[in-house]
């Protein structure tokens, strides 16, 4: 039986990128979690008290929002392509989705990390709950909005009609493919 990455190389590449992005977010977010644990236990207080919520925001946003959704988009892309036995209808949309999510993540993360540098007039210490009317730098919300729209674009591409079948025929038997039904 052919491997997924051989049948759908372009989709596999997008999935790998999305997974890699999710693990980068996991790594950075976890690092801030570790720093907080060291801080709160008094073992190694590296974060100054004024930066505590900056670190907490980075931790929450990168883990609860960015890591989970990037991972979800990757797994869902794989699951949809594999289940429907067809490639994504439009790879450009998948790339656009991934690009929007990356640009959004970078924008949001920069506004959060800006809180560590007093010289930069930028901060977003609003935690991942970001309850109004507390305010973060506009880039924080703009970035998250781009990220969100990226997930919509990705989702739109999963369920559109069309898309090419596998490059090799599966040996596991005939299944009804949408384009044949």
């Amino acid at each position, binding site marked *: 039986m052919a491997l997924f990455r051989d049948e759908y190389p372009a989709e596999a590449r997008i999935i790998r990128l999305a997974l890699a992005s999710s693990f980068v977010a996991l790594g950075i977010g976890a690092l801030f979690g570790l720093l907080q644990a060291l801080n709160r236990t008094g073992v190694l207080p590296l974060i100054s008290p004024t930066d505590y919520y900056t670190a907490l925001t980075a931790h929450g946003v990168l883990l609860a929002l960015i890591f989970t959704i990037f991972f979800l988009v990757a797994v869902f892309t794989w699951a949809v392509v594999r289940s429907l036995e067809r490639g994504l209808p439009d790879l450009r949309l998948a790339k656009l989705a991934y690009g929007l999510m990356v640009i959004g993540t970078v924008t949001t993360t920069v506004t959060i990390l800006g809180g560590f540098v007093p010289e930069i007039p930028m901060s977003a210490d609003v935690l991942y709950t970001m*309850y109004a*009317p*507390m305010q973060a730098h506009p880039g924080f919300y703009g970035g998250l909005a781009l990220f969100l729209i990226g997930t919509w674009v990705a989702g739109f591409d999963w369920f559109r009609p069309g898309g090419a079948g596998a490059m090799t025929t599966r040996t596991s038997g005939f299944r009804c493919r949408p384009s044949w039904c």
Partner: protein
Amino acid sequence: MDIHRYERLWLAGALVLIVLFIGTITYGAVVVGVEMVSASGGTIAPDEIPNDDRFSDPRPRVEQVGENEYEAYVIARQFLFQPRQLRVPEGSTVTFYVTSPDVLHGFEVVGTNANMMVIPGQVTKATVEFEEAGSYGVVCNEYCGAGHHTMEGSIEVVPQSEWEGGN
């Protein structure tokens, strides 16, 4: 239509969870009698708070409104409670009116089930019974900014014998 066994299991599991969640809330509301804080406290424009009779007095304001009933007015703001400390007698029933001029805050009487969200523009009203004398901590439990963790107050529930009325 053939649905894979695993998919059926997942669907059944999710449905059972939904039923359990709704059941828990129903049980809490009907059997245990958990009451949510309602909007009965009314609204107030944040910049009108200094001009409002209920909140303009900077001193602790606890008013006796019944034999053993009191009303207390509190402003929760970045990053303190005004007043910081309230005194009420043991065994009293106190109705709190809490509002915020800036962002969301919490008003939680530690160790009790008295826990309210303080919303700018809104007066949160909740009634609490203080059966036992002692010092009760009050904390803000909604993240409200850089000084959130320093935002605390207290309610001193004094024995009836030591209560000399008011603050």
